[in-house]
């Protein structure tokens, strides 16, 4: 996971100077949470990979302008979550489908089967019932551990809206788990 703030500044400085190893350290420190955050918002593993990947590519394009005194995480997370929300909203309009139309190679034989669901956890399935905007604030609060004020700043929302979405998301998730208890 993420290193100390001193490590991170050194990685950014190194990456700005062209060090691929420092970029790799930065990537390894931040990829897991970026991917998870995207996945929990969009509920599509392939799209989550794309979003997290594109967010890092956007970060590379802006790397020279990045102020090392600021932490990298919030900057990256803002890109990830906003892209994830946009993707989730626009999915129907784009007409994207999942991998049900893709075919595994027949080379090498073997059986063909449906991929395992990424929704191995009840909480992930429960989040799927929320809107993308609600999922985003839940992810920012409980996965990435931002305060409501920081979330409001990241998503450029009024703080009251953030609090309202957190409360409603918690209530709906609570109902979901309440129904499943024996």
């Amino acid at each position, binding site marked *: 996971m993420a290193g100390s703030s001193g490590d991170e500044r050194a990685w950014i400085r190194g990456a*700005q*100077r*062209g060090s*691929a190893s420092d*970029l*790799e350290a930065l*990537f*390894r420190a931040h*990829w*897991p949470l970026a*991917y*998870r955050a995207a*996945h*929990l918002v969009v509920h599509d*593993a*392939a*799209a*989550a*990979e*794309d979003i*997290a*990947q594109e967010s*890092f*590519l956007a970060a*590379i394009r802006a*790397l*020279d302008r990045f102020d090392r005194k600021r932490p990298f995480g919030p900057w990256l997370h803002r890109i990830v979550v906003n892209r994830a929300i946009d993707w989730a909203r626009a999915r129907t*309009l*784009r*007409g*994207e*489908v*999942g*991998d*049900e*139309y*893709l*075919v*595994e*190679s027949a*080379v090498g034989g073997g059986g*063909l089967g*449906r*991929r395992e*669901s*990424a929704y*191995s*956890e009840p*909480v*992930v399935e429960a*989040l799927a019932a929320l809107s993308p905007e609600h999922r985003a604030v*839940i*992810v920012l*609060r*409980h*996965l990435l551990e931002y305060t409501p004020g920081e979330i409001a700043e990241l998503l450029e929302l009024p703080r009251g809206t953030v609090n309202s979405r957190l409360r409603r998301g*918690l209530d709906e*998730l*609570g109902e979901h788990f*309440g129904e499943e208890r024996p």
Partner: protein
Amino acid sequence: MNDAELRRLVRRASLTEEGEAGLRSWEVVRAAFEEREPAPRRRHHARALALAAAALALVAATLSPPGRALVGSIRAAVAPNAPTRIRAAAPALFSLPTRGRILVNSSRGPWVVQANGSRRRLGPYGEATWSPRGLYVAATRGNTLLALEPDGDVRWSLARPSPVRRPRWSPSGYRIAYLSGGLRVVAGNGEDDRRLDGPAEAFAWRPGERHVLAYGDRYGRVRVRDADSGAWLWRSPGNGRPASSLRGIEWSADGQRLLVRERTVPARPDGRRFRLPPQRLVLYDGRGRLVRTLNLGRDREVGSAAFARRGYGFAYTDYEPLSNTGRVVLVDGDTGAERILFRGRGRLEDATWSPDGRWLLAGWPEANQWLFLRAPGVGRIAAVSGIAGSFDPAAGGGGALFPQIAGWCCP
């Protein structure tokens, strides 16, 4: 449920493929980082520079050789029957999945499609092709070769005694090869037009600043030649068998691999029923040495092929008449292993990579759809319906012809 409970559940949730996704994405991120040219840092205010003695001038990153294309695994879903169309396709082309512009040749002339989905028809021309950086378009109209601005303004035109076909701009931007009574080359400004050789089955410029053309002669041999000096660089040998027919030639991005689509003409039909001649994809290295041959047999026809933007992996489309099934297949550049990315009813055409190499576009005339296939390892398709009518809006009652994808260029 309280905050602490939810936090515990969210943070402990396990997600499949997180590790594999990370490995794939790191390769993409690393490749983009290696191609980037760092900009010099701006000077900060004096107080911010109090501890810095020198300006932060960055040395331009040394470009490293292109990395190998990743071919990750494709998650499988069994489709008991090849689909006839993607049901959830977008009803129209609202946007491209990534940056760049697509050139399309339709029955009404060439069109440029922007990343936001907007389209502009260039005019009443035949075939069109991008210049290497998308600044111009070469197009044909009867016996005339033209160079156009992307908004359709004509920069120059060149009249020939014979019909002009298949213009192809060199990677340098300073030459255009085309067919008109033979294989001809003209300078990018329309001057110094001259004949290079007789009729060529297929031809392609080698990437790089030197003007090298690979083309197939009427005997099915591959010739690689310096178009400026006329010097032969290499030729594939004749083999004494019935002539092969070359259907297409593609160069890898670094110019070190040449992919040739061949069809061997049989000496006689097989029994009473005429069978398709065997199809082959032949891979040569930059010196003309054979790397690999993919024999596709008699039952499949190769439609198109395209190297990935990096490395030696490539995609091709093929079609099996007996089952009326088309496929998009990806070939690993290192091992030659094949993976079927998509299978559907009818032919699939014009395999074309996005400029960033992350999407593969194919045309699907039977479904009247375009398929945007996400680069391997990330299973996604974005499909768009109504393609024929988008580029021939005047045709009614389904009379529009499906257009040809002529290139996906630069953002």
